[in-house]
């Protein structure tokens, strides 16, 4: 690759730098990013509210009206967001109702955790895998087909579906991996293109008789077999998928921190040239990273298909999880624990968003704005530091080492 040398001589702010700064940002930065995002969200909620607009016209004549309206709009929206995501205190009839929102949040976090872990592995290896969307779709195709057309006994059916999902995603990850390894093709471009191919592949498959509900002309598959369903816990929306997601997080932690492959992945991510000099097979590492990453992303599809009765494969099965997962992985600093927490936060924003929209009529796009601002701030830690006048950890480290050097010098002269 010809641009490698150039990159070394002039460190341009590329996405590689952005990934690294996101991965090394502190938990404080992440927390502050969330706070700022919610504040910006509050401003937009106020601005979009009809009552606020009305009272703003006579702001100076009667400011109390304006601020009352702002408080009502923002308070109402965020209160229903909270009640939809964490605990419902206003309309609950019993204890189960009170905790129902948090169980939904957990259920919604599952695909985001899987896909976030998948992208995190790629990020740690210095690979910007944008292809989670396509990998989820391929996982859904295989898992779905196995789920509705093969009639297997209970337990075995779920396992076969899980394998199908992993294989589907891994296949879609293998393609950009091998292309990068063999030809140096940029994985960003290849995975974006494969996303489109996956969308149209699924669209085409759904026109085939084999993938279509027999009685219908609509592009929807038959419903999944009852045997191909995750067991639920205590009648809540939480199912085996969440346990598997947590297990996957533990697995990823072990892989990255304890295994030889993980060490290789991290070394390649830090500096591919150094890793190559140290005798590591960088190309094969890229391939393995993409296979693992794709397979984990493929598993995200299972939470859509195996979570409840009446699930069907449709053109929209992957929702926007593949893209939301980029945010989740960045916010989670590509680490398993962070990814799980970020997945829960985004699951909560989704669960709460439904209630916020239905009850207060706040536009659902606010949620997207909040998520986007979080990403923006996470990717640019200096911006957050400037906003809150936080010290630069790098500079402090440099300053302390300089001071240390000076003191030792003084000691020597004395």
């Amino acid at each position, binding site marked *: 690759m010809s641009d490698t040398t150039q990159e070394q001589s002039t460190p341009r702010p590329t996405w590689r730098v952005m990934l690294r700064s996101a991965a090394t940002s502190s938990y404080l930065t992440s927390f502050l990013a969330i706070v700022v995002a919610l504040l910006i969200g509050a401003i937009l909620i106020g601005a979009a509210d009809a009552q606020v607009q009305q009272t703003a016209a*006579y*702001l*100076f*004549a009667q400011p109390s009206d304006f601020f009352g309206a702002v408080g009502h709009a923002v308070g109402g929206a965020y209160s229903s967001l909270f009640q939809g995501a964490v605990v419902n205190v206003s309309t609950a009839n019993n204890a189960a109702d009170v905790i129902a929102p948090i169980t939904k949040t957990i259920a919604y976090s599952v695909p985001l955790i899987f896909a976030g872990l998948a992208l995190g592995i790629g990020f740690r290896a210095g690979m910007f895998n944008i292809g989670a969307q396509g990998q989820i779709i391929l996982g859904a195709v295989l898992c779905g087909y196995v789920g509705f057309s093969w009639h297997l006994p209970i337990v075995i059916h779920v396992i076969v579906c899980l394998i199908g999902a992993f294989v589907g995603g891994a296949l879609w990850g293998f393609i950009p991996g091998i292309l990068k390894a063999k030809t140096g093709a940029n994985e960003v471009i290849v995975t974006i293109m494969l996303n489109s191919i996956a969308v149209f592949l699924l669209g085409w498959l759904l*026109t085939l008789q084999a993938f279509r509900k027999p009685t219908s*002309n609509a592009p929807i598959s038959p419903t999944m077999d009852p045997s191909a369903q995750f067991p639920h816990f205590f009648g809540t929306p939480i199912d085996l998928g969440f346990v598997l997601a947590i297990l996957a997080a533990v697995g990823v932690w072990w892989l990255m921190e304890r295994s030889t492959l993980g060490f290789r992945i991290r070394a390649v991510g830090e500096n591919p040239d150094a890793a190559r000099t140290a005798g590591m097979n960088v190309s094969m590492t890229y391939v393995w990273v993409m296979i693992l990453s794709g397979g984990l992303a493929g598993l995200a599809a299972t939470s859509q298909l195996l979570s409840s009765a009446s699930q*069907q494969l449709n*053109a929209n099965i992957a929702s926007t999880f593949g893209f939301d997962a980029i945010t989740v992985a960045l916010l989670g600093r590509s680490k398993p624990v962070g990814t799980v927490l970020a997945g829960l936060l985004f699951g909560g924003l989704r669960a709460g968003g439904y209630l916020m929209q239905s009850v207060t009529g706040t536009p*659902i796009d606010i949620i997207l704005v909040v998520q986007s601002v979080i990403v923006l701030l996470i990717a640019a830690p200096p911006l957050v530091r400037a906003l809150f006048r936080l010290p630069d950890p790098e500079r402090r480290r440099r300053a302390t080492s300089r001071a240390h050097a000076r003191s030792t010098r003084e000691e020597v002269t004395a």
Partner: protein
Amino acid sequence: MKKLAASAVLITAAALALAGCASAPQSNPSTGATGSASNFLACMISDQGGFDDKSFNQSGFEGLVKAQDELGVTIKSAESQNASDFAPNLESMQTNNCDLTITVGFMLAEATKAQATANPDTHFAIIDDNSIELPNVKPLVFKTSDASFLAGYLAAAYSTTGVVATFGGMQIPSVTIFMDGFVDGVAQYNADSGKTVQVLGWDKATQKGSFTGDFEDQSKGQITTKNFIEAGADVVMPVAGPVGNGAAMAAQDAGNVAIIWVDADGFETAPQYQDLFLTSVMKEIGQSVFDTIKATEDGTYSNTPYVGTLANGGVGIAPYHNFDSKIPQEVKDKINQLQADIASGKLKVVSPSDPQ
């Protein structure tokens, strides 16, 4: 830089101050509907197109707003961004105790069925789906093929190149039903006149044809239409919501190509292309929503499907507007005749996607 920021702040502050200088109203009239106060709550959930899709979600929402304005009912709405939002949106909406919940699009059928089964005491209605058989779900469906048959006949009669075309956004029944009727209308013209006008983009027998893949990307509509025009088509009917704008752009570039709009009268909803619209195949979704809300409020809700046809005015073709002078009187007469025949049942237009 600092100066710039400071002046920007000053200007914004000044603008805010000026904007906020109006005097306060004397008393605060109760906000809400202008009509007679009503406790009736009508709710609506969109599919992933959202309520600003210039197509069927928007038409449905207009019916909801009309009910708010004219009947004084309270309304709540929620937009879905993708298929996984349907069930949660419906569930959250039920916390408002809606008297009637309308779901827009067949994609929401499974979610609607589940919520209607769980809440047997509240009423539901679903647009473009006729698969749910429950006492509290009313399907609102349209025999669009009746109207697009007339549009197909008109297109064939108007075409000078002997080639017309149609394409869809996605291959779903509510789209292909337009294309089936269009193809049959052209066939009718060929049978009547002895000509052989060709239809590109849809084969009714095999149910295969041209689709752009979504209802968003206008550039795909533009490319598809450009290809049709290069193949000789001089009338194109895009059945793809906002993607149709791309078709209109391609037609404008080519000149001498007419567009047949769908869902609403394009002459009014897309005025920038007024000179291109031969006619529009209209589907009165808004009216059906309004009527259903009114009936439910009056206590005359029933789960009998509403089927919009040429006979009841639920579907139809728009006036010819700027093309009025370019269409021979005998063609207009023939179309009026066909319209009457279809409405009376003398002529039957059949599509595999017809509401059963």
